[in-house]
Every structure is written in C-alpha cells, then in structure tokens.
C-alpha cells in the first residue's frame, strides 16, 4: 500500500509548500508596502495656482519629508507618485497621459485640488472634467486650494492604501497602458 500512502502525502506536502509560499509572499508584500509607502518620489505636474499650496506643503513648515514624500523627481521615469496639481485642459491632456505612461510601475496618482479632481468651476470648452477621465486616480484632495493639512491627510490615505495593496518582489505582468497618446 505504499503507492496510496504516497498519493496521500503529495497533496499534504503541496499544501504546506503553498502555505509557506503564500505566507512568505504576504510577508514580502507587507515589507514592500512598508518600504514603498515611506519612499514616495513624486512628480509634480503643477499647472496652476494650487502649486503655491503644494510648495507650502513641501516646504519646512508642513514638511512632506516627514512622510518620506519630500523629494520631487522632475523625470517621470524616476517617480512613483504623480501629483497633478491644478487645472488640466484639453490641450494638456495628452501630455499628462504621456507622463503617466512613462512612469515605471508601481505608480500612484493624486489629484490635488478641486480642478484636478473634477474640473472645479471650469465647466467650459477647454477644461478636462477631472483628471480621472485621463488617468486612474488613487486619492482625491478637495479644496480650492486645499489646506496643507488636507494634503497631508491625503498623503496618509495614500500610504494606508499602499500598505494594504498586494506587492510583488518581481512582477512580470505587462504594465497596463492607458492607451495611445
């Protein structure tokens, strides 16, 4: 009866291996999430007056550096957080999309201010009604412009979200492009 014993053993071993792997990947995911949420390199896509408030948040008084999100990278290839700060109009939409597409995964997007979130009061012929019509958005920060405290709250929300989402050490999946543009 050695064969049946072997057969009995096989799934047990597989299950244990799977369990071990799942546990390991969960641990890795948690660790990666922890590392990634405290090292947000942002690309400031600043188009309008919200930029002043963004500078206030980044400067010493409110100090985004406390959350590991202080250093703006002015190349989308080195950034993993796209901060869309200000009004985006139809003429700029292809630029925004191109910048989003040239960022390496994993990447997150924050809509800073009401114009970026929904178009704000610019409901006219030129303005995109929220950047989520162009790129997917993780956190919306309302306000015209938002208070620095709101922005910090938004960053904390994003960090929570990053910690909770699954991360992989090596991700061979093709990154999803938003399309031509």
């Amino acid at each position, binding site marked *: 009866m050695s064969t049946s014993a072997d057969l009995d053993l096989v799934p047990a071993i597989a299950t244990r291996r799977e369990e071990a792997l799942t546990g390991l990947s969960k641990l890795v995911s948690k660790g990666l999430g922890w590392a990634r949420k405290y090292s947000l390199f942002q690309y400031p896509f600043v188009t309008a007056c919200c930029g002043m408030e963004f500078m206030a948040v980044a400067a010493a008084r409110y100090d985004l550096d406390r959350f590991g999100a202080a250093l703006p990278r002015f190349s989308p290839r080195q950034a993993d957080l796209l901060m869309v700060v200000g009004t985006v109009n*139809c003429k700029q939409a292809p630029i925004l999309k191109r910048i989003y597409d040239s960022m390496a995964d994993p990447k997150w997007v924050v809509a800073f201010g009401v114009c970026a979130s929904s178009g704000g009061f610019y409901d006219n*012929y030129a303005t995109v*009604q929220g950047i*989520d019509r162009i790129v997917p958005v993780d956190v919306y920060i309302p306000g015209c412009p938002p208070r620095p405290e709101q922005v910090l709250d938004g960053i904390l929300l994003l960090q929570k979200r990053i910690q909770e989402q699954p991360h992989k050490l090596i991700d061979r999946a093709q990154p999803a492009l938003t399309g031509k543009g």
Partner: protein
Amino acid sequence: MAQAALQKLRERLPGAVTDAYEGVGGDDVALVRKESVEEVCRFLKEDPDLAFDMAPYITAVDYMGSDPRFEVVYQLYSTKKNHRLRLRVPVPESDPVVRTVTALWKGADWYERYCWDMYGIRFEGHPDPRRLYMYEEFVGHPLRKDYPLRGRQPLVPERQVDEPWRGPGPAARD
C-alpha cells in the same frame, strides 16, 4: 485727451472715421471703417503730434444678432504724449477679414492670433496666422456666442467615470 488726435485724423483721412465719442472713463473712442484700419493706424503712429507708439491691447467683440456682427477693438497709447485712443472696427460675419497692424506694432502679433483663435477674425498679411491658445485640431472659435459653452474637443479618448456625484460625461452633456 485725444480730441486733437481725432480732429487731425478726420482732417487727414476723411471718411475713415465714421463716428467718435467720449467713452466711459474719459477715453476717446473712434469708429473706423474696416478698409482703412491700416491707413489710420499708420497715420496715428507716424504723425509726430500723435505718436501712438504702443498698442496695449487688441481684442474682438461678438455682438451676435446685430449687423455687422463682430468688432475689433484697438487700444492705442502714446508713451511720448501720454494719451490714449480706442478704435472700434465693425467687421461683418460674411467677410471677417481685417488688415494686420503687426508691421506697425510688433506686439499686435499675438493679439491678432488671439482674435483669430477665439473669434475667427482673419488678419490679412499676418506673418504667422496660427491659433494662439487652442490646438490645431480644434474646430470652431470658442468665444463666438454660437459656440456651445461646454463644447469640449478632447485630444485623447476619455475614460468612463461612473461615480453618480460626478454628473454625466462630457459627451452626454454637451
């Protein structure tokens, strides 16, 4: 202030100025025929007593429903004499073409491009008659009163947004 300028203009170019009055705030306003814009501007600039050496603003107005429909407005200023003059030039919808004044004031370049972009008034002889603000793919002239307010023309296909508080998408609303 520029009464003397108006007087001189009327003497030198009879028929070019159809009407003149003192506008709100004391600026003198002259209604000028479309055909003689370049001539009038050249005279105003080159006459040593008038010396309007600056065009601080050139824009257009759409009086939809009246004839002629458009009006190009030239704000002129003399840095030497410190006086101002406003020229109103009625332009019909059927032939929205005015001679350019970029040869006189270089700064008129972008203002005329702006008028073309927003109101569709062409400036004959302009060195670079492109749109100023909108993109080349844009159809129509957005500040015309008959252009739809929310007539957005997206350059990239827009994603569907399904949140109910965001209202219908641009395609459904416009």
